């Protein structure tokens, strides 16, 4: 039991040490991709737009083509519904081949649609290659009280009341109720 626990700790430590860089190896071991990000922490407010960049590097000896980059969003807290489509409308990018030793940078435009703490990460894959996940970008979004629901009542009541009064006033005025000394009875002949 102690040996199993020790092995698990070693594996976990290895993953953590590798840290901000991850690597994938192809089946023939001749190409490797890595995904890096320009920042690992973003703090913003609800509703704000933000941007980060991910760079995909081909450190292998041959060019890699057919690559697809995919953006994902998760909440660090459970019971928070996250629909990644709401955060970014362009989450899937089809990349041009990356030559050996080359790299390509993708700019991701996102919008903070929920309050809380979220993980944003990019995955790259192709037909030949298993998915390579980039490092996590932690996005902290502060709640903003954007809508004072109680304030709707004056508006919801006021506008119809104003229009109603104008309508009534105009009708009465046209019918002559406000005219002094004028008979409204129809004449004969």
């Amino acid at each position: 039991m102690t040996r199993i626990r020790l092995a698990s700790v070693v594996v976990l430590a290895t993953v953590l040490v590798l840290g901000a860089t991850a690597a994938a190896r192809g089946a023939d071991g001749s190409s490797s991709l890595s995904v890096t990000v320009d920042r690992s922490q973003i703090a913003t407010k609800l509703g704000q737009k933000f941007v980060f960049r991910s760079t995909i590097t081909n450190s292998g000896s041959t060019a890699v083509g057919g690559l697809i980059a995919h953006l994902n969003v998760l909440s660090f807290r459970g019971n928070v519904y996250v629909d990644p489509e709401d955060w970014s409308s362009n989450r899937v990018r089809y990349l041009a081949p990356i030559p050996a030793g080359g790299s390509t940078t993708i700019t991701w435009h996102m919008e903070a649609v929920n309050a809380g703490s979220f993980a944003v990460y990019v995955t790259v894959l192709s037909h030949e290659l298993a998915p390579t996940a980039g490092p996590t970008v932690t996005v902290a979004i502060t709640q903003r009280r954007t809508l004072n629901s109680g304030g709707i009542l004056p508006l919801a009541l006021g506008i119809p009341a104003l229009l109603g009064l104008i309508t009534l006033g105009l009708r009465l005025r046209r019918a002559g109720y406000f005219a002094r000394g004028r008979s409204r009875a129809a004449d004969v002949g």
Partner: protein
Amino acid sequence: MTTPAVEAHGVGKRYGSLVALADLTFAVQPGEVLGVLGPNGAGKTTAIRVLTTILPAGSGSFSVAGVPHTRPTDIRRRIGVLPESAGYPDRQQGQEYLRYHARLYGHSRASARAVARTLLEEVGLADRAGSLISTYSRGMRQRLGIARALVNDPGVVFLDEPTLGLDPAGQRQVLGNVRRIASERGAAVLLCTHLLAEVEENCSRVLILNHGRVLAEGTVAEITRRAAAPRSGRLHVAPEHVERATTVLVGSRAVEDVQRTDGRPGALTVVFASGVNLDGASMNEAVRILVEANVPLVSFELEGARLSDAFLAMTEVV
């Protein structure tokens, strides 16, 4: 010779196989009131609509206010029309309605206001200028319609059944307006109506239509004469002189028969000898005989001398 205000030559209009108008030919001079008579479906309203360019003519030609039918917009600029089935916007005020139409004829805002005020006074609606048309009686609406027809100071005015649905006082008012249009403004007036009394009292000339065709055109007297020479007359004498009146009348060569009218004391029906009563000569003779016989005469009237008789005679035969 002045240019006719309205001149039509062979104007025709068909709706499919139905002939609404055929060979309509007539002329109206400025200042004249032409009564257009005809039974229902005679083509009066169609004639008005063709001459006022609402409907295109199928054949023939015409000119209105000196403008040929090929220039309908210019015709409309010079005419005023009160259609038979004219409706009025209930939610407009009378003055607002007239101002709007004045502006459609090219008046400026200020000019339209002045015209509206003047016309409403002319037709007797000045005190109701600011009231909604929905509060107007039928007579008031007709007067408003006449005012609207005058908003552009037209040279020719077309009135289609202007007294329809009005009480006697309303009719008198409207017809008074009609006479003033012709006499004071010098406009030619075409008055479409089926009320013969209106035509007799207000029109200088008459045009009788039936089944889309012109049956007769001329003055009231000309048309009446053309229809038939009157063959009888009604005399009303003092009841105590009926016997004496009958005796002296029967003795005249101009009189064929004298009969008492049932239920009316003193009333006699006199039948003239045929071929004798030209221009009412026999009636004159009968009156002369009674006067010479010292028979007090209350009233006398030729039967068949009214436009209604001529009209019925013409339209029933066709």
